[in-house]
């Protein structure tokens, strides 16, 4: 287990280093992306631009700038160039909304896709399967910004059932927290439900013909027991793997559109705003957060694998 953790930590450091370096260099390569020009504003003089360049250290070699930026990030002193805030503080304040969105939607899309995928598999080729297939395709095809706008208009404005956006902290008002998140959860889940249910259906249909399933049936186990203990348990392995990576992506700012449409002020919305302003420091920190979340959750998933499939051992 110790070797496993060390290996994961080393992988995480490597991934974060490569991603941070690539992101940093990418922004350096953007034509006319000189942050001093943008910081100085449209009516700045050449002298003012030069002073800003010197003040922020943009006139130093690229490796010095990269090193200083990393040092600032790891000492909690990373400040946005264009917005002036402490980036880690800002991410910290956005994380509750993002985590609420990610885990709430994650539970919804995981459970729903298990039910839908299993139903589609056991009814394969029948009317129910066809209807579920069409619904899954519709779900996959619905962009979150469109679905969000539709839901806000009809369920928020017209029917006045849900708020028109915003986020209320769980500790401030649990009921308001819930009502503000119902539509975002649904919006984010729809796409994943469609995708996950199709993957699960396909995996179940493959697993159904495995020898150990036939053996289980021959032992006289009921259909329900075979389905839950043998077929579903093994079929869930790729789903759990996907789930972990998708949750990590959402935590790392991947729900940009959902957060922006519903104005949740989470990490995704911060990423969107920073990209729009070419504000490199928040973008750097968010991409590193994503890398961290992906590697961390991938490790958690590996442990879950071992639980779901005894043939898998961490030592392997």
């Amino acid at each position: 287990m110790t070797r496993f953790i060390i290996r994961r930590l080393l992988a995480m450091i490597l991934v974060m280093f490569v991603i941070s370096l690539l992101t940093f260099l990418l922004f350096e390569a953007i034509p006319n992306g000189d942050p001093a020009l943008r910081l100085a504003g449209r009516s700045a003089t050449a002298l003012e631009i030069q002073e800003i360049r010197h003040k922020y250290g943009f006139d130093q070699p690229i490796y010095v700038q990269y090193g200083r930026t990393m040092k600032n990030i790891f000492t909690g002193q990373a400040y946005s160039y264009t917005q002036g805030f402490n980036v880690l503080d800002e991410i910290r304040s956005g994380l509750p909304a993002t985590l609420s969105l990610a885990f709430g939607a994650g539970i919804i899309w995981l459970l729903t896709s298990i039910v839908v995928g299993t139903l589609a598999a056991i009814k394969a080729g029948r009317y129910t399967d066809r209807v579920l297939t069409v619904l899954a395709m519709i779900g996959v095809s619905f962009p979150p910004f469109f679905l969000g706008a539709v839901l806000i208009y009809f369920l928020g404005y017209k029917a006045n059932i849900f708020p028109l956006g915003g986020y209320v902290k769980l500790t401030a008002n649990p009921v308001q927290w819930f009502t503000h998140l119902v539509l975002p959860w649904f919006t984010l889940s729809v796409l994943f439900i469609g995708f996950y249910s199709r993957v699960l259906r396909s995996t179940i249909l493959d697993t159904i013909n495995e020898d150990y399933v036939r053996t289980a049936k021959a032992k006289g186990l009921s259909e329900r027991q075979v389905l839950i203990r043998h077929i579903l348990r093994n079929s869930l392995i790729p789903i759990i793997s996907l789930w972990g990576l998708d949750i990590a992506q959402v935590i790392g700012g991947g729900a940009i559109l959902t957060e922006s449409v519903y104005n949740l002020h989470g990490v995704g919305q911060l990423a969107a705003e920073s990209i729009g302003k070419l504000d490199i420091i928040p973008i750097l920190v968010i991409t590193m957060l994503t890398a961290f979340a992906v590697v961390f959750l991938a490790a958690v998933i590996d442990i879950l694998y071992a639980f779901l499939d005894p043939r898998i051992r961490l030592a392997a």
Partner: protein
Amino acid sequence: MRRYNKPARIAAIALAASIVVAACGSSSSKTTSTPSSTSPSTAKNGGTVTLLMGTAPDSLDPGMGYTTQAAEPDWLAYTGLTTYAHANGSAGGQVIPGLATALPAITDGGKTYSVTLRKGLVFSNGKPVKASDFTYTVERAIKIPWGGSGQFITAQIAGATAYSTGKAKTISGITTNDATGQITIHLNSAYGAFDNVLAFPSLGLVPTGTPFTNEPNNPPPGVGPYMITNVVPNASFSLVRNPKWTSMNIPGIPAGHVDINAKISSNIDANTLSVLNNSADIFDWADTIPGSLLPQLKSQASDRFSQVDLGGSTYYIFMNQKAKPFSSQLAREAVVTGLSQPAMNRLGSGTLAYGCYFLPPAIIGHPSGTPCPYGDPASGGNIAKAKQLVTQSGMAGTPVTVWSETRQPRQAWMTYYTSFLNQIGFKATQKVIADATFFTTIGNLKLNPQTGFADWNQDFPNPVDFYLLLSGAAILPTNNQNFGQVDDPFINAQVNKLGAVPTSQLSSVAGQWQALDEYTAKKAYVAVFGYQTFPKFTSTRINYGAAIFHPVYGWDWSSFQLK
């Protein structure tokens, strides 16, 4: 220049909402001019209102904030030595004394400005205001640096450049006397708009000792009817009434009626619906009502919504005088003659007011009664005539690159413009640049951009603020603002001469500014395609008639009151 920032992703959200509410149809909204005085209704004090902003202020610290979203609250929390009248229409563009007892006394051929600080002034934290706080405030704006400090401070105040570059410990051009409250400012040369400069919220006084760093989360104390509190970056902030303000009794600057919670929400569709159904109270003036929701507003909220032409911004297409084909006046005339403003207006959801002059309607010198030299802009372009002019110019078939931002409707405007150029005989292609780097890209002189989108929103209501964009002196290697590289001796001479006339005497040279603006239009140096109108939209809770739509700062938050 203050910028109307709108994230590009709003376009996607707006598009989605457009589809959702397509059944409502679409139409242009009514454009109105604001009345020139405030409503006589009796003010009701107390309560809190919610204002929705599509874009966060760049910083609420006056030493840094430069966007419209920053200026709106900062204006009320950081009063300068001068400020603007709290009134609708052109009356609101009038400079009045702020923390100074009177407007500056201008001597030495316009190079020395002298004022006396009012007695009994205190910052919102209770600290007394001293004359030397002004020097400190200016120094802080230079050091942070505030986006306008180069153009309006270091270029104007004597000794400011030496201070900026570290060659001096203070600004030699500013002298103060804390005992008498006397403040004297020496300029490098006469700059008539300096009264306006003193009114910038960035020169609104802050206490000596305030850190020389941007403090967006905890803006410093100021002197004004409001205080900025509860700042959550990019999410919300509050303006609460300053209890110390009333006792200072400064004429012309009223105390506010309500406290204001400002919430940042980038989903403009949701913001519109929230104000429409009264779950929020004020729609920020710098945001644009989605075209798909305009009919609903017209039918359901006609008593609390209108599109107002504040007359302080010009949308135009720059045409490079130093590069083919627009080095030819006939080629430029072809563009101005053939471009259809009604088509551009449709692409902008009907938010443009027609016009052909560089100075917008609220700025002194705008030729309001003079017909446009190349046809009535409201009637659509004359394509046949434009084709003929292109042929005459000998520039037919010249390749043209049209530079454009990604945000809508600016990109759509330039797409239309590109197809129009092809229609009249050029070989045009569109080049789209990310919003964040657009102006730095086209402002790089090495690129020598041929033509593309440009806009200017007044820093203050003075024609010199616009004409510096067309002055030869404004052509710079980087961050160039004179995108068309206009370098006309007549314009240069007039800008130098008229720019020295103090703001308080502008009316005496209005005719000369008008002649200059007519000359610019005849030369077709730029293709103006309209003046931006802004939404004045509130919930039913707000006394709509009493709410002031200010020509410089948009909403005057101190005029909000509950019914």
